[in-house]
């Protein structure tokens, strides 16, 4: 996994709640068997509308998505995180994320930042009035900072549990970390009751 420390880029406001993973990447894209090549599928249906925010010239090249509440609901498809990354997003900011989407994103180094809804809305307004605004997502200090040419400033601290932060900062591979405790797994396996189900004879 790619490490995430500090990222600065322009942001795009997505003023919609309950953006489900079917909207982020529609099911027909899930037939692919790779982890890349999903950028054209990102928000595919909405992008057909020329006025959709991602189609607006001033947000071209933005790398931070500032989304409405309950982002990433529904399907567990990790393709949603891949599509956002393939398109160029490094971080998503929302007041609420669906659990599975959030977990998938963090496992891929796409930082999901939870901020209070009023702060998210202030940030959206800031970006709408100044699309060139640079937004910094700083995982080291757990802080989001935004400033526009007009000088408006927004600084907000965010929470992320220490273990997840450490994995992200160092770009650590979960499987290798778990296998460092292989003896614990083996000990647990040896203690499982005989009545537990098996799919095939061991």
């Amino acid at each position, binding site marked *: 996994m790619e490490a995430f420390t500090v990222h600065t880029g322009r942001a795009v406001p997505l*003023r*919609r*709640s*309950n953006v*489900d993973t*079917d*909207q982020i990447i*529609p*099911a*027909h894209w*899930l*037939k*692919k*068997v*790779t*982890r890349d090549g999903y950028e054209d599928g990102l928000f595919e*249906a909405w992008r057909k509308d020329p006025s959709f925010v991602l189609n607006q010239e001033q947000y071209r090249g933005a790398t931070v998505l500032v989304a*409405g*509440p*309950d982002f990433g*609901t*529904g*399907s*567990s*498809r*990790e393709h949603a*995180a891949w599509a956002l990354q393939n398109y160029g997003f490094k971080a998503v900011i929302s007041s*609420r*994320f*669906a*659990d*599975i989407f959030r*977990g*998938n994103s963090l*496992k891929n180094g796409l930082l999901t930042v939870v901020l209070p*809804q009023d702060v998210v809305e202030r940030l959206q307004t800031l970006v709408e009035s100044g699309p060139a605004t640079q937004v910094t997502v700083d995982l080291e200090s757990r802080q989001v900072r935004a400033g526009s040419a007009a000088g408006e400033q927004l600084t907000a601290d965010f929470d992320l*549990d*220490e*273990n997840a932060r450490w994995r992200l900062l160092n770009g650590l591979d*979960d*499987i290798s*970390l*778990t*296998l460092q*405790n*292989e003896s*614990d*797994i083996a000990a647990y*396996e040896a203690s*499982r*009751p*005989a*009545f*537990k*189900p*098996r*799919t*095939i*004879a*061991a």
Partner: protein
Amino acid sequence: MGRTLAEKVWDDHVVRRAEGEPDLLFIDLHLLHEVTSPQAFDGLRLGGRKVRRLDLTIATEDHNTPTLDIDKPIADPVSRTQLETLRKNCAEFGVRLHPLGDVEQGVVHVVGPQLGLTQPGTTVVCGDSHTSTHGAFGALAFGIGTSQVEHVLATQTLPMARPKTMAITVEGELPEDVTAKDLILAVIAKIGTGGGQGYILEYRGSAIEKLSMESRMTICNMSIEAGARAGMIAPDETTFAYLRGRAHAPEGADWDDAVAYWRTLRTDDDAVFDAEVFLDAAELAPFVTWGTNPGQGAPLSESVPDPASYDDASQRLAAEKALEYMGLSAGQALRDIRVDTVFVGSCTNGRIEDLRSAASVLEGRKVADGVRMLVVPGSVRVALQAVEEGLDKVFTASGAEWRHAGCSMCLGMNPDQLAPGERSASTSNRNFEGRQGKGGRTHLVSPQVAAATAVLGHLASPADLSDADDRTPAGAR
């Protein structure tokens, strides 16, 4: 202090617990399908890793599979490649696979329980959010992403922070025309699509205890639509009776040991939930969705709500956008909404009880002119059982299409899709924009409501049908 059901099952699976780290949980059963596994197997190959526990892993094909002409090559080359990739991966790594055409093939969440693999007190994962279905057995079951699929394949464990617990208590008697689907749609409308975020839900109370296993699975299945990590129901005699004699259920002394353990899997009287929600079963009614998320629902007797009636700005905006997408207007009676497609099936409502329920309404009646009705059993076993009971004949005699098992129109990855602007009454779980096909509009309903809607051509419950108006004497029981 006592523990909840979820906490007991969690504690029994902790491989390693360390300060400042998520718990490392052992996984008893890992279900695989073609859509979320290819990149995980690629990861194993890249890392030079094997599947740690082939005896706790099983795969089937469901999302992409056609429901017609299954003996012919799959027309869509991309779908075909994905199924072939699963077959190659299972062969290479030694994973048990039930492919299209196999008698045990079907929707992954129907297959696990019917084989008896889903058991109380187990941890079950799958790269599919509706894994919550298996919680109906008192299993701790949750959907995972592809990175986690790879992690479980390689280690048979998952690092996870323990979610909070929420009790959803439903007391009393469900009215005669109210099903498990209506109950869970009402729960989601009450707590919202994010209401369960960070929680494991436990459904309890006298109304839940009276439900069959199929109904319990319908309820736990849609826990994810409330944003929950998992949903559970304490195992009881109904659970044990369902499991006894199934292919992978314990036998002999193992059965006795298992049941003795399973009986301990109840929330202690002095346990405390982090949140509690109460519903009165008697107040529930047939429920349908009008919007584009599963929380946007209302009793069938009501009308499409006015977005202006929402105090919360983001809910108001969501309702406005939903009505626009759905082509509905505020104040329109839900019963007046006409559909052109009815879908009965999916991991939510594709089990034998669901098919019986739909068939009992359809028997001797005809699907309305201009309405296409698809009945897609959840598995080959369900299909065979339905044929044995003559349900397939009831469906075809009424004008419905009787199809092969799979996920089908629930998510439209196969050819079963809505065309732009088409409207369905669907027993599936998601009414998201475009879920059943680009531009398609979905109303989530129970199998009974689906069948009554098919007959009348507009959203309806069986109570709206009279024997005089539609049922022919030949079909009367």
